Every structure is written in structure tokens, then in C-alpha cells.
């Protein structure tokens, strides 16, 4: 078990290191930082001085090492727009984003999983078909389209809910629905197919043939086994919440990390972008790690074995 945990943690750290490397490579490929930050017609002496000050005249591997250690120490640079530390700028926005992402995740899980289980247990019923249609819609309707349609109906036409801003609890409703509804559909579809797969297994038939009441078969045998693939999807959704926030926060002018990302990208505020990139990858890697460890709890067969090398 210890080896299992160590392997997974090592893998997670490796991914973070890759993201840092990615940021470094992209940063260096995008051009000479001296020219980008100073103006192109700055005097050559000034450029040289800038390069010296930032260590840009050193060999590339040394720059990479410096960059890496700086990030390890939490030095993520300053926003060149208002000069404040990027980390602080991002941290201020996190609560607003959590206000949307946590209810959205609850909506996905609270609606998607029960709907999927119900659909699997009542296969080919009207509700099953409704759930499947809903799931396809969840995949094909992008969140910004859904968000705008909701605004059009509930804010513009009916006037029930605000179309944006962060004034009251009612401003949360539309963004959360547009962020979570599609994911609920996708989750319902996964849960349904995981349940159907488990229900087709011989041990389920054996248990019900032995005379165990059906609801007990479902609770004791089917649900725990179907939970394994479902947990993976939920874990992945936790990681991608931030990506969803980018679009939805823009639709609803919500002052969160996602909106900050879009503004920073338009302004090419590289320190802020890099900081959010690292924040998102850390979230993603952590949720993947938790899923991996949960796997070990849910499926004892996986304990002590090595990762299968990315084959799945």
C-alpha cells in the first residue's frame, strides 16, 4: 500500500514538473523576454542590462534551474499591469470561483449519479430515454450557449433572475446551472453504462438467484462496483471545473479566476497566466491523485500493483 501511494504521488509531482517545464519552454519560444517587456526600440545597452538583471544571458539550463527553484519557493512574478504579485491577484479571485464551482459540482453529482442509476435500473423506460437524450445534449450544447439561452429566457424575457454580476444569492443560480447541467448529463451517461456493465456480471445474477432481495443486491453488490469508473469521471470533473469557470464567468461577468485568466490572456499578462496555469494543474493533479488513492480503497485488487503504463 505504501509503495502504491508513493508511486502515485511521484507521478503527480512529475506532472507538475512537466507543467512548469511546459510554461518555461512556451515562454522562451514566444520570443526574447527583454524585447517583449521593454519596447523593441529600447537602446541596446538597456536591453543588455535587462538581460543581465534577469539572468537571460546565462546558459539555458541554468535559467531553467533558476526558474524552477523560484517557482518552488512560490515566486510567481508580478502582474505587469498593476505591479502586484501574481499569486496575490489570483488568490483574491479564488473565493468567487469557488462560489460557482462547488455548487456546480454538487449539481453534477447530485443530479447526474442518481439519474444514471435510475436509468440503468429502469432500462428502456421513458425516463431512461429522457436521461440519455439529456446526456447527449450535455455533450453537444457548450456551456456558453446554455448560459446565454438561460439569460435570454430567465433574465431578459421573464426577468426572474439577474443576467450577471455578484449582487445576491440569486446571481449564482444561472451560472451554476450553465456550468453544471452539461456535466450532470455526461455523468448520468457514465453512471448508467457503469451500472449496466455491473448488472450484467455473473455475481449479480448469482446473488439474485440465491434469493437476495433485489434492492439489497443493488445496494450491496452493484453500487460499490459501479462506483469505481464513476469516481474517475467525478475526479476528472473536479479538475476541469476551473476550465469550465473560464467560459461561464465570462458569460456572467463573474469576478473569478476564470475571468481573470481571460483578461490576462488578452493583455498578455504572462505572470498571471502562468500562475493560473500552475493553479489549475495543481488542482487537476491533486484530484487525479485523490481518485487514484480512492481507487485503492474501492478496488483492493489494485493495491500494491504498479500503474499499467498509461495504457488506459
Amino acid at each position, binding site marked *: 500500500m505504501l509503495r502504491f501511494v508513493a508511486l502515485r504521488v511521484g507521478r503527480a509531482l*512529475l*506532472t507538475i514538473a*512537466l*507543467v512548469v517545464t*511546459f*510554461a518555461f519552454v*512556451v*515562454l522562451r*519560444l*514566444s520570443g526574447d523576454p527583454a524585447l517583449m517587456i521593454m519596447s523593441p526600440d529600447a537602446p541596446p545597452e538597456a536591453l543588455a542590462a535587462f538581460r543581465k538583471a534577469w539572468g537571460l544571458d546565462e546558459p539555458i539550463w541554468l535559467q531553467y534551474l533558476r526558474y524552477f527553484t523560484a517557482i518552488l519557493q512560490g515566486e510567481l512574478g508580478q502582474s505587469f499591469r498593476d505591479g502586484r504579485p501574481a499569486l496575490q491577484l489570483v488568490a483574491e479571485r479564488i473565493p468567487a470561483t469557488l462560489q460557482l464551482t462547488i455548487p456546480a459540482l454538487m449539481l453534477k453529482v447530485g443530479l447526474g449519479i442518481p439519474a444514471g442509476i435510475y436509468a440503468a435500473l429502469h432500462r428502456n423506460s421513458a425516463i431512461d430515454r429522457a436521461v440519455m437524450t439529456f446526456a*447527449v445534449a450535455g*455533450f*453537444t*450544447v*457548450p456551456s*456558453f*450557449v446554455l448560459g*446565454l*439561452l438561460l*439569460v*435570454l429566457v430567465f433574465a*431578459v424575457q421573464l426577468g426572474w433572475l439577474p*443576467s450577471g454580476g455578484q449582487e445576491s444569492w440569486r446571481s449564482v443560480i444561472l451560472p451554476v446551472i450553465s456550468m453544471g447541467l452539461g456535466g450532470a448529463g455526461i455523468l448520468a451517461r457514465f453512471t448508467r453504462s457503469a451500472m449496466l456493465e455491473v448488472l450484467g456480471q455473473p455475481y449479480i445474477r448469482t446473488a439474485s438467484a440465491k434469493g437476495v432481495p433485489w434492492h439489497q443486491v443493488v445496494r450491496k453488490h452493484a453500487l460499490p462496483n459501479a462506483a469505481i469508473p464513476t469516481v474517475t469521471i467525478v475526479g476528472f470533473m473536479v*479538475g*476541469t471545473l*476551473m*476550465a469550465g469557470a*473560464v*467560459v461561464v464567468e*465570462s*458569460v456572467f461577468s463573474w469576478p473569478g479566476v476564470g475571468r481573470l*485568466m*481571460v483578461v*490576462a*490572456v*488578452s493583455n*498578455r*499578462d*504572462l505572470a498571471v*497566466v*502562468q500562475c*493560473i*496555469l500552475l493553479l*489549475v*494543474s495543481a488542482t*487537476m*493533479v491533486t484530484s*487525479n491523485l485523490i481518485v487514484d488513492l480512492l481507487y485503492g480503497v474501492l478496488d483492493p485488487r489494485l493495491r500494491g500493483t504498479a500503474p499499467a*503504463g*498509461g*495504457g488506459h
Partner: protein
Amino acid sequence: MSEQVLPAVAAPPKRRVAIPPGVALAMLWLLAMVTIALLADVIRPYGITAMDLRSRLQPPVGFGGGWLHPLGTDELGRDVFSRLIESIRMSLMIAFGATIIAAVFGTTMGFLAAHFRGWVEQAVLMLIDFQASMPFLILALSVLAFFGNSLPLFICLMGLYGWERHARISRGLAIAANAQGYAAAVRQLGAKPLRIYLKHVLPNIASTLIVAATLSFPEVVLLESGLSFLGLGVQPPMTSLGNMVGYGREYITRAPWIMLSPCVVIVLTTLSVSILGDWLRDRLDPTLT
């Protein structure tokens, strides 16, 4: 495999395939979209930047507008129908280009991993894991922030989406073919690796790769429209579906039709490709997920 069970002497009779109505509708819609994209210049009644300041914010036919502008006009009096046609062309072009880039790049990486094994394979697998474990939207936004935006760069960036799916498939199938069977036999005949992979392995796994491409195509459409909606994808004066939605959003109270028509096209197109892709997958390769 069925061929081994059959008394394989005569050619198997060609079965006619019944196409379900949903799939037929999806095919029709996609055919219409491709036709529109190809003939955009002929169909389009107005130029996409042609302004008609006397008829600004005209509603579409059926909502009080006239046939002069069937889908209405925007704030500057530009014809929504013409802009929509041009946007369909742009969005489809980006999605096709990106899907093809992803397929070529991914398949090449998969073949390289399968051919060299060892550290090359490990490096490719690490890249695959990295790509699969990061939300692509965030990576794409970072690259856009660092490099700025231009159409070729944007298409290439979208082309990085979904390559890992092709890489995984082609690596797995090429390893299987190399271990035993036709690829090993041809190698034994003295063929160079390029010939083995291009003439034998690639055609044999093409159907699986095409199905994989139909899975990523709608995702690329959504990604492109999302980025363009945020104003970070296709830049004016060029227009794409997401771009139109982003622009129409400003007029959601006064002229919702500007935003609605591209929304409908986005949803119907991704829906059609998904239906078609699911159907193809069931027919060609049920093992693929």
C-alpha cells in the same frame, strides 16, 4: 474473426446497410454544412462587412423582418445570414484542419513509439499522460497568451487537441502488428520501416483512426467556438460561429437573433457529428471508447 469461421472460398456477399433515420438526418445536416462551407462565396447574398446603416437590427423573417435579410441584421446593418455562412466556413475549416493535424501528428507519434520502443516510447507515453491530465482549454489559453494570435497558429494550436487519442490507438495497433502478423512478415521481406507503416499498418488501422477523428471533431468545434466567444480565437474582421455568439451577446436584449442562429448551428453540427461518430463506432470498431 468471422473470416476464419466461414468456409472462406467465395467473396462474402455485400450486405446493404440500413441507416437509421437519426443518422440520416445527421448526414444530411453535415452535407448541408460542408456544401455551405465550400460554396460560401456563391451562396452569401452580401459581403460580411457590407453595412446597411438604414436597416440596422432588423429582425429575421417571421419576427417582423423581411426577406431582404432572412436572418436579420446586426447593429451595423450587416446581414446575419451572410455572416453565418462565412462563420460556418471558418469554423469548419478550423475544425477540419485541426482534426487532420491531430490525426497526423498523433499517428506519427504512436508509430514512432511503437517502432523505437525504449525511451522514445516512454517519452511519448509521458506526453500522452500530460496532455490527458490537463484541461486543454487552459493550455490553449496559456499558449495564446504567450504567442499572441494569428489564424495559422490558432489552427495548429487546435491541432494539438486530441492527438493523444490517435497516438494511443496507433501505438497499440502498430505494436500488435509488429509482434506478429502482416507487419512482421513484410519486415521480414526486407521492407523499410516507412513502407511498413505507410503501406501496410496505416491502411489497416485507418477505420479505427477515422472513428477516433469523428470523436474529436465536435470537441474541436466546441473548443474553437468557446475560445472565439471569449474573443481569444478567430479575430475580427474574420468571423466564426463562436465569434458571432460573442458579438451577439452584447445585443441579447435588443436583437437575440444575432446570437441565436450561430448557437443553433453549433449545437446541431456537434450533435450530428456525435451521432454519426457513435454509429460509425458501433459498426466499425465497438471496442473503441
